[in-house]
């Protein structure tokens, strides 16, 4: 047994008190660094702090609240962090757009530099030539899926042995099969209805979640199942367009826009669904698919992006081609025909928190060893 200090600096978009898949991953990742026993302390610099879950911060994470709120503040806080902390062995960049800043920090501390890639943002070179250039020179990469790893390696020419695939995880104690919350169902007018659901950000610039594809097959589904409802959970600047589209297709009465829901209400919302459907084409991984599956909801996901890995190549749910509406419609009808009680697939345990923490810890240990080797040299 030898004891040595290994401090980590992490630059991230959002994490604690944030929303969405990336913030979820960052929270889980930071927690894993706390638990792994390798990292003495992690200084985390978020770009954004929203007002999500009120949760305890792991004790070895110092979460710099002052860094959220503007680029110049962010820059100043990173400088201050570098100034006040003598030893940092690893700088982790949580988003490819933050890479130039992370590179500077790593250089300043003679630390290793690691990059986390989530999905779409790193499948092709970014708008920033500097970030692209640095991306090919980082010491290590974490990718949330094999697909993201391959796409990133494709353009950055990063050697595959530096890329570590660390899929998202789902809290299997919190996301559990629950009976339908009748009050919630009544609020959305879902009592006595067959419900399909998609959860995600309705972002105009990222129309890859598959809301359009589901709306397009909805008229066909309504003909076969008149009491079908499509529950859209999430919000964003694309909502007006999607509402107008539903209107055009004549299915407004069959679509419910629930808006954004709090993290604590998510399980109740998944439990309203008879099928979770997401014919996406740009998901890096698709943590929502796992959450739905953990709640025992039958899942239909895409075979064209990272969802395929999240669904374990079909073991956790049905795979469809998002460009094939007939296949999508038939699979939905097929799934809604079954009236089996909710059951969580056993193989989902591979995506449990324990597994995630073990793998993240394994990666952190390798980084520490490499950092110490570099220091010794």
């Amino acid at each position, binding site marked *: *047994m*030898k*004891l*040595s*200090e290994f401090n980590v600096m992490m630059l991230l978009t959002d994490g604690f008190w944030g929303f969405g898949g990336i913030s979820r991953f960052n929270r889980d990742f930071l927690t894993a660094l*706390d*638990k*792994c*026993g390798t*990292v*003495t*302390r992690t*200084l985390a610099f978020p770009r954004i702090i929203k007002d999500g879950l009120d949760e*305890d*911060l792991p*004790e*070895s*994470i*110092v*979460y710099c*609240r002052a860094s959220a709120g503007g680029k110049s503040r962010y820059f100043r806080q990173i400088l*201050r*962090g570098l*100034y*006040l*902390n003598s030893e940092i062995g690893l700088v982790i960049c949580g988003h490819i757009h933050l890479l130039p800043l992370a590179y500077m920090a790593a250089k300043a501390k003679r630390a290793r530099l690691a990059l986390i890639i989530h999905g779409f943002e790193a499948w092709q070179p970014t708008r920033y030539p500097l970030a692209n250039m640095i991306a090919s020179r980082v010491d290590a990469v974490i990718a949330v899926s094999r697909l993201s790893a391959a796409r990133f390696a494709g353009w950055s020419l990063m050697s595959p042995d530096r890329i570590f695939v660390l899929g998202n995880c789902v809290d299997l104690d919190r996301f559990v099969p629950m009976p339908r919350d009748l009050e919630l169902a009544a609020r959305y007018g879902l009592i006595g209805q067959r419900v399909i659901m998609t959860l995600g950000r309705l972002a105009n610039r990222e129309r890859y979640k598959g809301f359009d594809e589901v709306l397009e097959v909805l008229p066909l589904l309504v003909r076969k199942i008149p009491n079908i409802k499509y529950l859209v959970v999430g919000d964003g600047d694309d909502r007006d367009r999607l509402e107008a589209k539903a209107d055009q297709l004549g299915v407004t009465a069959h679509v419910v826009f629930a808006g954004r829901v709090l993290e604590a209400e998510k399980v109740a919302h998944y439990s309203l669904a008879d099928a979770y459907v997401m014919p996406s084409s740009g998901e890096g991984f698709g943590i929502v698919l796992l959450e739905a599956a953990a709640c025992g909801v039958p899942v239909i996901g895409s075979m064209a992006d990272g969802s395929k890995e999240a669904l374990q190549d079909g073991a956790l749910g049905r795979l469809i081609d998002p460009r094939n509406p007939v296949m999508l419609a038939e699979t939905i009808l097929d799934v809604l025909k079954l009236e089996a009680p909710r059951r969580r697939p056993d193989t989902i345990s591979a995506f449990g928190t324990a597994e995630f923490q073990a793998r993240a810890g394994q990666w952190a240990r390798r980084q520490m060893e490499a950092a110490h080797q570099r220091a010794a040299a």
Partner: protein
Amino acid sequence: MCGIAAALAIDGSLDQRHADIVASLNQWQAHRGPDGEGLWLAKDGKAILGHRRLAIIDTGPSGAQPMTDVSGRWTVTLNGEIYNYRALRRELEMQGRQFATNSDTEVLINAVAQWGEGALTRLRGMFAFALWDQQERELWLARDPYGIKPLYTAQAGNVLWVASQARALAECAPITDRRDAAALVGFYLWGSVPEPFSWWEDVRPLPAGHVQRLSPGRASSPSRQYYSVPSHFAFESDAQSSPEFLRNILTDSVEHHLVADTDVGVFLSAGLDSNLVASLAATKTRKLRTITLAFREYENTPDDEAPLAELAAKAIGSEHTTVRIGRDEFDALLADFFCKMDQPTIDGLNTYLISRAAAKQGLKVVLSGLGGDELLGGYPSFHQIPRLLRLGRVPGVTHLGRFAERACREVLPGLFSSKLASVFSHSGNILDAYRLRRCVCLKDGLDVILDKSWLDEGFAKLREAATQESILEPLGQEPVRAQIAALESCCYLRNQLLRDADWAGMAHGVEIRVPFVDRVVLEALGPTVASKRPPRKSDLAAILRRLPPVLHGRRKTGFTTPARQWATGEAAPGRHGLEHWSNLVARVMRTNLVRRPAVPARTSDAVHAGIPSADRLREAS
């Protein structure tokens, strides 16, 4: 000296499951008492007492615990020693009380039976106990005045759990393992978790010098302070010390601390305190064994204490052993060191190593010179703090100091040590000055160590507890020297030195006795600490005339050790300070890298008392 455990049903009654947990607490603390185990359940199922025994007085089966008295009313599980038990027994016998054993434990029971809570101030020794009064259906918990022996409680639902070690409760009792924010902040500030907090939010120490009486069905009653150490430093105008006076007081204390039915040894270093204890002990016992820890790394260097200690041992005439430890041997011990560590602490490594050496020599009881510096003004704080306070009297100096401190930290970190930069800002009052003297890391430096959420919560809890303020409360108008002695005795000594001496000694089943940390010594010397003629280190030198002069003239060095450097695998010492070490300790304790394997304890393993099965318990009720 042992490990104790207990459970009390606040509502309902206890059954087999609870007995199993007390048995596992016993098992967790097995290293504290390798000589025996006991488990006892109250007839009505309201309380369970557990005990691991290190047999020192009345070492036969009659001294086994938990022990019930002749009347059958009282049952106790005790960790500690009552040094004046023979005198108390005579007194109690004269008042008609009957005894069945020769142990100090039975004397404790009878003293409480005879004098109630008043008994506690008559006891001379170190103790923590849980005592069940079958008649009143009441559980007594009590801890000695200085808090030499630990006692922790944790409430989970309707059951109150008690143990000698906080970590035993955290790992065995059904409680959450959430960290206490005040403990985190306190640990990074001072290097040990400050009472009244523990590393785990659900686990609480019973404060030193307190007694608590709990009964089932009644909402938990607060503990009551029966003894205040700080108030004994209040200056009395006619009090003064002299070498002769000091000699008499300390001789009496050492003599009391030699009471045992086994061999007693002394930890001997090149320092005056341990030499005094050894030399006084040598006059009171026929065969004294002394033991010194030395490091191979230091052989033939000025840091090596062994040659001086050997010289001293020769002068005293003790049977002396120098135990030299090398890097390889140490490496193999590090995991066990953290495994036995109760709560995070930046100290304890040397005590751990020397206790191991003592155990290997077959010693169960060892005297230590711990606590001498607090009474005899041995720490630099005794002259540095008054100087700092004089500086603080210059108008505006603290305001200017705060500005300078911030400037140094934000603009020029590394130019000055942060402690040096804070000298002016901490000169306004004694508490600030003391905190600066004792801190590992300054308050302002914590924001890169702990997150704001922990800091806000931790500081709020520390402010609310106001422990240090309450230490000074009875000494409002007293001279600074008395206040420093009180702070050192109730903060550093209690939270760091005594706590580490307990777990690190007990890690090897070695009882460390501290003749300087004694109620009677305090009552005699406390009032003289601030007098015109306070007891001084130089008085010890006068008492120690027999010792080689080289020991007298030696400057206080503090015990140097390569052990931390070994642990971190660094080539040279001094690159990293204690702050670095505290980070490492916290990391190990946080992630429980060395969590001991969970061995499910069954009550059938208990040797002392039969526990009825859950079914039989239910029938009985």
